[in-house]
């Protein structure tokens, strides 16, 4: 298997896809949303507790590919404790990273451990896998009803 694949499936991503963190519905939640990618059938739900604009608890459920699952897992680890505005800033930077719209080295400093997703930019068809959890999180924060879709 080639270099691009090694970049895509970093060790951290493989680890999180096999053993997703926060793969549960937290006891107390006041926001949740469902997200799906109708093209591949990936489906996840994000559940969180928002306290004075801060995410103080978050978990997710569902089934997806390695990229999708790892992204959801790492996202929940990263956004816990952040306020809504910071989540939006982080999402924008993450999105630039996976779509190849930012310098990977610069981005790495800005997104922390989410930098392992830089390899996704070489696989445009997989961007939706990496961003599904984030779109779902944003829908949950916005209190939008119904499922979000990547299409």
């Amino acid at each position, binding site marked *: *298997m*080639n270099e*691009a*694949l090694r970049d*895509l*499936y970093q060790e951290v991503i*493989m680890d999180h896809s*096999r053993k997703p963190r926060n793969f549960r519905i937290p006891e107390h939640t006041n926001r949740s949303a469902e997200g799906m990618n109708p*093209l*591949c*059938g*990936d*489906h996840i739900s994000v559940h969180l507790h928002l306290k004075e604009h801060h995410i103080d608890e978050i978990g997710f459920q569902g*089934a*997806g*590919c*390695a*990229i*999708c*699952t790892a992204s959801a897992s790492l996202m929940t680890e990263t956004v816990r404790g952040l306020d809504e505005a910071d989540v939006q800033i982080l999402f924008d930077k993450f999105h630039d990273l996976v779509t190849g719209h930012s310098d990977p080295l610069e981005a790495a400093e800005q997104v922390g451990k989410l930098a392992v997703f830089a390899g996704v930019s070489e*696989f445009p*068809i*997989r961007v939706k*896998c990496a961003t599904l959890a984030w779109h779902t999180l944003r829908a949950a924060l916005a209190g939008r009803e119904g499922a979000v879709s990547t299409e």
Partner: protein
Amino acid sequence: MAGAIRIRNRKVMHQVHGMNTSLPKVAPKPQYDLARVRQDFPILSSKVRDQPLVYLDNAATTQKPQSMLDAVARYYSAENSNVHRGVHYLSVLATQRYEDARKTVARFLGAAPQELVFVRGVTEAINMIAQSFVRPRVGPGDEILISEMEHHSNIVPWQMIREQTGATLRVAPVNDRGELRMDAFTELLSERTRIVSVVHISNVTGTVNPVAEITRLAHEVGAHVLLDGAQAAAHTPVNVKELGCDFYVFSGHKTYGPTGIGAIYAPFALWEEMPPYHGGGDMIRLVTFERTTYNEPPYKFEAGTPNIAGAIGLAAALEYVEALGTLQVMRYEDELTSYLLDGLRSLPGIRIIGEAEQRAGAVSFVLDSIHPHDVGTLLDQEGIAVRTGHHCAQPLMKRFGVPATTRASIGLYNTAEEIDRLLDGLTKVQEFFGHE
């Protein structure tokens, strides 16, 4: 003696789909010249990711032979004109080519030319039959019967009819092998059933449905029968008169022809009683502002300038398949399918989705703990094209309890070496994800 048995079994396999348990593990070879056939398809010699392309996504669309491409180019470069109107040379020529194409496509199905209507493909075909034929005939209390293995294109048009008319949609279940449960199907059939619409060959599991029997049973209760031949035409001999069905539909791009063209067969008498689907030019006899009289079938159902080049290309594609022999193609694809299934079964941690006794060359599977999307991305890096996802058959995915599958689907030009490369690729995928 063992040899004799083996030969007899192979003979049996030649007659019906999928007697795949008795085949020795030798690389299958077709009766036709495979190397030459592969040269006839320009795209097959291309490289993907620096490796020779292995194209195993034929259930999504097939590749195109040069003779088909030439026919389309010849039409546009030397024969292009509108059909059925002009008195000038080119218009007469184009009309003749278009109507010759209709004859070829009709012959391919064992039908008469006036029984064949050109459409964009199976989706438009099913929508046309649903709206023009079924909708005026059904209301509350009437039933439409489909199966659990249908493509979304044979589900959604009927849900629309249900909403529009109040008719009931019934779904015949499949068993764990992915076969239609004929006991349940028979039970669901009744005098209330107005139409039975089922797939001839499943695009997910490759299951070959007993469509002649289904037709016979449906006719016994007075229901009409629509068969979705998208995965069958050009993979197995089809004779609509022998099947006895009321409608048979297929898409050109899955039969080595162009996209945007397909066909519906129906007996002429059915076409005659059906109101038109689209109104416009070419489908009329006389138009006044008070009243319009329609042209006769099949023209009544081909409003507007048709896909002339598409029809000509489709005919050329079907002529290509006919020249190889549809039966020879089926036999070879059956052997290659057995070879693929044997190889897949020898892999650890694999589940084949659909193990029908009567089957064709669409083979779905899932690998333990590895999502089909990841499989697809890794195989793509090896130059191997397979389909991953729900294959527009979400209810069937649900039936088998999987969100998606990886599907390899065979065409007449695939080789045993390509199957070997797929199997090697899958082993690499399992190594990569640490699930050897």
